[in-house]
């Protein structure tokens, strides 16, 4: 039974779930002793912020011929009302993702830009594929996302996990 006051133990939950699915080996989660840290290079009010999501475009244009997903980008204005979250693992019994702002808060960020909290958003938001392969994320998707943020002149990034 879960303690109602405690965060869900998702790694433990996932371990039990995948054993029930019949997988022989437990998933090995990414773990690091050291964590990088970079300070803002300019005041927040002068900074341009990029938003990243793990959702996909509705037209599946982030998938290659073999079905593998890749990093993708789309304009923040106009932003798509809906994104595809079907393939991702979230609590589909309890909630929904019909409100894009609940997982990719572009309008909320724009409100804060209008209030002067940040200089603005980058012209595009970016989608990163959720992968079991830590290596693929590290060696392919993370460098790809970095390149796109550099292209957009991002000073900082907010990453929202579904």
């Amino acid at each position, binding site marked *: 039974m*879960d*303690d109602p006051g405690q*965060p*869900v133990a*998702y790694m433990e*939950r*996932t371990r039990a*779930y995948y054993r*029930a*699915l*019949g*997988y022989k080996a437990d998933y090995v*989660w*990414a773990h*690091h*002793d050291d*964590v*990088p*840290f*970079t*300070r803002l*290079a300019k005041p*927040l009010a002068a900074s341009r912020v990029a938003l990243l999501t*793990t959702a996909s475009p509705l037209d599946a244009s982030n998938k290659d011929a073999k*079905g*593998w997903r890749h990093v993708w980008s789309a304009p923040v204005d106009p932003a798509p009302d809906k994104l595809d979250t079907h393939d991702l*693992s*979230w*609590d589909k019994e*309890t*909630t*929904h*993702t*019909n*409100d894009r*702002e*609940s*997982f*990719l*808060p572009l*309008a*909320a*960020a724009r*409100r804060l830009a209008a209030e002067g*909290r940040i200089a603005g958003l980058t012209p595009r938001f970016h989608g*990163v594929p*959720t*992968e079991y392969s830590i*290596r693929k*994320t590290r060696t392919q998707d*993370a*460098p790809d996302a*970095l390149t796109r*943020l550099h292209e957009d002149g991002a000073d*900082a*990034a907010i*990453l*929202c*996990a*579904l």
Partner: protein
Amino acid sequence: MCHQTVSLIARHLEQNGIPTVVIGSARDIVEYCGVPRFVFTDFPLGNPAGLPWQPDMQRAIVAQALDLLETATAPRTTVVAPFAWNGDPGWRSVYNRVTPENADALRALGDERRRKMLARKPVKD
């Protein structure tokens, strides 16, 4: 896995000079991976940036993330969003639950997934 993915991406961006903040609802996965800044929203997975159709809450959570970009002085800084899930109070037990009643269905689901994966060229890890 979404939380691990964004955590790994955040680490890479940070290593390359871009400050980051993760917004998410799986605290254990993000903190086990290790990220510079994290806004934890204690909601069911799917709505990390605020409850659906609640723009003021969503704005407050993004504002909290921006505050963290400015105020964090060291990595592994986690703040908790001051909001609670407003639906089923038993939501914590729902996601990926395993029970005697669904054991056969889960095993069949696993078999189907393995069949599909065999049809694709795997990325070696």
